[in-house]
């Protein structure tokens, strides 16, 4: 079995954060955790090539690194592609997820990675990939690699994969049929009885989990701050130039408010189902408070208002979508040096 393994600069032994800019490179054979991976896979498995990149380089050059990895994995004639495990390292997890999903989609070979549930890469890629839940403790390397190797072998042999709990991967949100002894009604009554008696029971509905987003520190000097307005209320220029869908939107837009003292109803429309848009149509400031922001800007209460507002429609949208759009908006705001954002939500 021929394996190609992806590692970041740290696990490849190049160095820590100071080496995060390290360029993409190829090594022959197994490196670092790859040696243990090889042993755990057994059966004469061989890590024929290790691909290494600094975390910053991988995230900043995602498209070119994906292309390079696809080429190398194809060249190596690999049966299996492995990335990580990445534990809590966010950029590493994002790169591992992007690379695994590209290899899986383009080359059709089994892929496996590992990361903590809180890793942003898990949010983005758990629906597409088998990601072993590594937790955040890199000292558990052997245990994590063991589970990665076990599941990888199953994928290679095209054996049935068990439930997330049994195999140790992060739930993918897939629904599949299986036979049970008791009807839904019987199971439900048993759960209710157990709950009443304070006995343990396991719900069949998995509530969506929201990993806490750390709060950045407050704005220190509002008079110097650059602010931006965002809304998920679906306010778009007349004609909806970006064709933002009124439900389950996959797109967002950024619209100029340069030299505008306020927003006028005749210039805008609402692309958002589910709420009565007549009031915002009459006066869009009721959703995007431009008039007041301009006053505060003039009075010097705030430093500056960025001259575009961002908009999308926040209705009946899968989390994978909204998380992606949120990230894209945050990247834009960061690039523009925005200090704070007021996001109005319907």
């Amino acid at each position, binding site marked *: 079995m021929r394996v190609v393994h992806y590692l970041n600069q740290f696990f490849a032994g190049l160095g820590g954060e100071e080496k995060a800019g390290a360029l993409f490179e190829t090594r022959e054979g197994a490196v670092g955790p790859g040696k243990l991976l090889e042993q755990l896979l057994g059966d004469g498995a061989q890590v024929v090539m290790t691909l290494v990149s600094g975390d910053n380089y991988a995230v900043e050059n995602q498209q070119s690194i994906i292309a390079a990895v696809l080429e190398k994995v194809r060249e190596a004639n690999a049966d299996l592609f492995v990335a990580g495990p990445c534990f809590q390292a966010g950029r590493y997890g994002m790169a591992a997820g992007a690379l695994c999903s590209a290899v899986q989609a383009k080359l059709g070979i089994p892929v496996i990675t590992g990361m903590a549930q809180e890793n942003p890469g898990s949010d983005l890629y758990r629906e597409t990939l088998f990601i072993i839940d590594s937790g955040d403790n890199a000292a558990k390397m052997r245990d994590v690699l063991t589970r990665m190797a076990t599941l990888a072998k199953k994928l290679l042999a095209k054996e049935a994969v068990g439930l997330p709990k049994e195999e140790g991967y992060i739930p993918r949100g897939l629904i599949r049929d299986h036979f049970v002894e008791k009807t839904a009604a019987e199971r439900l009554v048993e759960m209710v009885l157990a709950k009443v008696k304070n006995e343990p029971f396991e719900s069949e509905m998995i509530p969506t989990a929201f990993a806490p987003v750390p709060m950045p520190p407050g704005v220190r000097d509002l008079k110097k701050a650059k602010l931006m307005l965002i809304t998920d209320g679906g306010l778009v220029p007349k004609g909806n130039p970006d064709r933002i869908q009124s439900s389950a939107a996959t797109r967002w837009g950024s619209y100029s408010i340069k030299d505008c003292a306020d927003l006028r109803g005749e210039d805008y429309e609402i692309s958002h189902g589910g709420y009565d848009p007549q009031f915002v149509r009459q006066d869009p400031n009721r959703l995007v*408070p431009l008039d007041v922001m301009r006053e505060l800007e003039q009075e010097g209460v705030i430093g500056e208002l960025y001259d575009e507002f961002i908009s999308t429609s926040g209705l009946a949208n899968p989390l994978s979508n909204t998380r992606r759009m949120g990230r894209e908006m945050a990247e834009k705001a960061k690039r523009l040096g925005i200090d704070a954002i*007021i996001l109005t939500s319907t």
Partner: protein
Amino acid sequence: MPIAEMVGANRPVLGNGIVHVMGDAKVSVDEEKRVRRQLVQKALEALQRDDNS
């Protein structure tokens, strides 16, 4: 607001109803602008804090 709290959004400020989060269709134009200004000021205060209090 319950949704913002459920998903753990940082610094939530309660707006004035879904149909006009930053306005009020029931009052005069001048009064509505005062309402909006108060809401924006609440948001600006929240932005200067280091917690959700």
